[in-house]
């Protein structure tokens, strides 16, 4: 009974994922959430925002926010290279850009290839990880991008009130 329930949960996460690299790790975002991939553009920084909120860019006449996922995941910031990309995703009807090291490929992740996120010890937040995908011998961390963004909003509010 329990096994059945588990299966239905993991089943819902199977599908196509866009994978990208952050440091030594590979991550995946549901392809349906991705709008486009662009190079690094001129970013206008917005004051009074957390450091991972890099600012706003002009995406063909639309002003959209851009976050640096490295900083968001508390990694060290890195100089932008030729390979650095902005993935534009649609979260709750609004567009947001995510800066990643490199975009790799689109992979099909089947339900049986997804494993639940194991406990990683205290203090490590796994809320926005929907599971770990094992594809072609690699481990892909599958992100729930909406959750990533919503925690970001909460933090921002806290930071503001802390001021």
């Amino acid at each position: 009974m329990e096994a059945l329930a588990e299966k239905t949960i993991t089943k819902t996460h199977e599908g196509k994922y866009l994978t990208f690299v952050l440091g030594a790790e590979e991550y995946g975002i549901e392809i349906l959430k991705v709008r486009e991939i662009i190079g690094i553009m001129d970013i206008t920084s917005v004051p009074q925002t957390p450091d991972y909120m890099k600012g706003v860019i002009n995406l063909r006449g639309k002003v959209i926010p851009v976050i640096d996922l490295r900083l968001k995941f508390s990694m060290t910031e890195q100089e932008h290279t030729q390979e650095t990309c902005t993935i534009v995703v649609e979260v709750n009807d609004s567009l947001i850009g995510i800066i990643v090291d490199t975009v790799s490929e689109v992979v099909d992740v089947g339900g049986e290839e997804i494993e639940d996120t194991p406990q990683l010890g205290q203090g490590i937040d796994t809320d926005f990880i929907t599971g770990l995908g094992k594809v072609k011998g690699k481990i892909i961390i599958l992100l729930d991008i909406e959750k990533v963004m919503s925690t970001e909003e909460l933090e921002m509010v806290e930071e503001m009130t802390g001021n």
Partner: protein
Amino acid sequence: MSKSNEEEQNTNPGSDELTLDIKEDSEIFLEFLSEVHDHLEDSESNVLSIEDDVCEYETINSIFRSIHSIKGSAGFLGLTKMQGLSHELETLLDKVRKDEIAITQEIINISLSSIDILRKLRDNLEIKVNTELGNIKDSDSSPKEQPIDIQPLIDTILSILSKDDKPEEIVPQSPSDQSKTVDTELQSSESPQELTDKINNSEPEEDLVVAWENQESSEKDFLGEILLDEGTITQDQLDKAIYERGKKVGEILVEGGITTAEKIENALKEQKPIGQILAEKGEITEPQLADALKRQDRKVGEILVDSGATTAGNIDSALQSQQTQRTAKLQSRTVKVDTVKLDNLFDLVGELVVTNTLICGEMKSAKDNGTSKNLSQLTKITKDIQDQVMSMRMVTLKQTFQKMSRLVRDVSFRSGKKVRFQISGEDTELDKNVIEELADPLVHILRNSIDHGVETGEDRTANGKPVEGLVKLSAFHRGGNIIIEIQDDGKGLQKDRILQKAIDKGMVTSQSSLTDNQIYNLIFAPGLSTADKITNISGRGVGMDVVKKNIEKLRGNVEVTSEEGKGSTFTIKLPLTLAIIDGIVVNVGDTKYIIPTVSIEESLRPTREEVSTVKNQGEVVNIRGSLLSLVRLHKLYNIDTEKTNPWESIVVVVEGAEGRYGVLVDELLGQQQVVIKSLGDRFKNVKGISGSAILGDGRVGLILDVSGVKEAFAGNN
């Protein structure tokens, strides 16, 4: 839908059983909502125009059509309440249309309250649709569906209808029929068409004729008007044709010189109607003649009914659809477009302009004559497209003004004052967003004008004024702005009382010398109401300050001038559009900011002596004797810059909600008109930034909100 099903729903009007699923057919529902909204707006303004002027057949007919359409669509969707109420209203209007009931104040009032209720029903459906579609999250702040009881209104309408049904008892076949009609109406259980048929069948013949004749005459007017509109004929030709039509055969003969007036005169004396001649010859009897004469006057529809070819109801609905088609032809020149699409188009055009500028910049060095000519052509076209797209967002003030006339009517009715309401310039166009935000301030000001400004009838006569108060609402262009004026001929503002109140509340000191205008404009300060008693219309001292705030949010301003005993005038100045502002582009480090030109007073580079610190923390700058606090933008927003000394950079003196202060920036880069883009919810907590704009180089600049900057600055210290 089967009859029994409908009956069941009607006996339990509390539950609307939707025939369609909101999620699956969301488009149908959204379309219905906007359609009903338009119909109600139209009907309301038409009802109001009936109240003002002579009641015209066409006006009533168009209200009838609107309500009829609402009824039809509501029935299709299974919205029983909306259908029920619009049905009763339709029945009432139908009688008015056929001159069976004279238009009275009562009927106008009922029509208006029915429209109000229909609007509420529509709003409920809108909330329901939005909730279903997930546009509204369940929370306390989100609007809730209001329970609405339509029964009292329906009862009132029915009572008017039944009152009117009484004369029908004179008609022999009526009594049984009539009681049946009332019964069916009370139950509202029959399909609208059947009901209409029944009512029509029980009508006295004369009324039917009157209705048709009305129809006929309006058609005739129509033809001439249509030809005139199309430019096929001129007014002169039309007049001549109408004149010709009235001529007798004799007149034409005389004019043609075929005979003389005398001969005609004699012939006319001898001439007898054909019927009379026949009767004299004994071919027919007098009753037969009378009958024939009666037939002669009849319309084709009536003859069809008599011969049993069709029913009066069918004829009626045929005539109605004939009318609808005619008006539909006139209205089909407009297309409804979703505002989101317009906004997208607007964004893209903005981007086109930016790209165009960039290319022009790159090509300038090319020195190719042909290319530069083509480029300037492209620039011109791009500009034209931008203007066109901008104008698409513009809407006339008509609807807003019409809403106001309804308000004035209601308020003056409640306060028992007679008020004449004059509107001018309702064709003035403004950005859609501005118009949406404008309604509330206008409501406040108009309420105040009627409640506080216009005196009671006795007072007015005592002061030698006409009993009827006059409130004027006008809109016009002046110097790149739209001006909206609200003028009343009431008692005006009482200077001394306002000043006294302000002193009592500690807003000004008794020593301060204020000009008359400054005193009048004190009424926009929070918490100041000069009304002696609080009525349910106004007088709580909130309102005018809200008006000022709302108008300022639209980047406009509001002022009042007044003359005691003669009335007051409120002047609202608004920018043409919310989408564009004039701004000065400045930079701090790498970041570019835009300061709205309206809030800038001057900019200067102070000398080292003019800047001094207070307690080694706060800084003030001495500008021609007045000390202003200095906000260092780079410090406030943590931006790296090399220019940290005020005497090496620029101080921009701005005026915010709490007075003047100086903003320290690196450089002024120039003045520019920019298209405002919202930064979205994500940045709504950032103080001092009201939005963003795309600058000439394609980068994003942030628009400073000078009041917000001051707040952030005060918070930081």
